[in-house]
C-alpha cells in the first residue's frame, strides 16, 4: 500500500522532536521493531536539525538562552519541508530546506567534519543518517537549499533480539 504525508514547519529547534515523533507515528502501520523506530527517529532528527541550524542558521535552542531567543539574534523565517512516503515495507523520507546550501557536500558528509565545533556539534549527523538508514542522497546548491533523501526497508530487522 502507498501512503504519503507532507509536513512543513518553521525552522525552530522545538520542531526537531515534533518532526521525528510525527514520522514515528506515521510509520506505525508498517509495524517497525523498536530498533527500526529508533533508527528512523535518529535519522529524521539529524536531517531536520541540520536544516534548522546549518541551512537557516537558527542556532538558538531553548536550553541555551532560556525560552525566548536573545534580542540580538534574528530568527530566520524559513521553513523545513518533510515528506514521508511508504510503499509496501519501503520508507522514503525527504527533508528539504531553502536555506544557504552546502558548498562541498562530500566534505560535509565526512565523519567528524563540522563547521561549528565551538557549538558542541559532533560532525556525525550525515554518518548517523547513513548508518541508520539503508540509503542516503544529498543534493545541495549554495544559496538555494538542501535536499536530503533517505530510504529504509522496515520489518527486516531480527524478529527477536538476543
Amino acid at each position, binding site marked *: 500500500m502507498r501512503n504519503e504525508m507532507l509536513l512543513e514547519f518553521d525552522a525552530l529547534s522545538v520542531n526537531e522532536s515534533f518532526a521525528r515523533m510525527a514520522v514515528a507515528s506515521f510509520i506505525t502501520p508498517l509495524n517497525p521493531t523498536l530498533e527500526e523506530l529508533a533508527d528512523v527517529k535518529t535519522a529524521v532528527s539529524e536531517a531536520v536539525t541540520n536544516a534548522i541550524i546549518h541551512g537557516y542558521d537558527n542556532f538558538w535552542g531553548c*536550553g541555551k538562552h532560556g525560552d525566548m531567543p536573545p534580542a540580538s539574534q534574528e530568527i530566520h523565517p524559513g521553513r523545513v519541508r518533510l515528506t514521508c512516503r511508504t510503499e509496501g515495507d519501503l520508507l522514503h523520507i525527504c527533508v528539504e530546506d531553502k536555506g544557504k546550501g552546502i558548498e562541498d557536500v562530500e566534505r560535509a558528509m565526512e565523519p567528524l567534519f563540522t563547521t561549528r565545533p565551538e557549538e558542541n556539534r559532533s560532525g556525525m549527523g550525515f554518518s548517523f543518517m547513513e548508518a541508520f538508514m539503508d540509503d542516503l542522497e544529498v543534493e545541495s546548491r549554495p544559496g538555494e537549499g538542501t535536499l536530503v533523501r533517505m530510504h529504509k526497508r522496515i520489518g527486516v530487522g531480527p524478529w527477536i533480539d538476543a
Partner: protein
Amino acid sequence: MDEFAVIDNCLMIRMPEEIDHHRCGYICEMADRYIVQQRVEHVVFDFEDTRFMDSSGIGILMGRYKKISCFGGKVFVLHPDRQIRRILNISGLGRLVEIVD
C-alpha cells in the same frame, strides 16, 4: 538544579528523556560552569531516563571529554540503553568514555 550534582571530584549529570540539539545547549553550558567553577575532575553522565539521543548527545560528551581529558579526567556513561550504546560505538566515542551499567 536537580540534574547536576558535584560529589567529591565528580560532576554527576542526570540526562533528560530526549537529547537533541534543542536541549543540548543548556546541558553543555551548565556542565562547563560546574567544570570551571567547582574544578571537577571527572564527569558522569547518567542515561537512566533517556529514551532518545541523536548526534547532539555525542557533541555534549565529546566537548566535555576534550575539556577534562587533558587534565587526566574521565567521562563515564551510566545506564545507556541499546540505542545509546550503538550511537556511542558508531561514533567511536565508546572507546574514549567508560561505560558502566
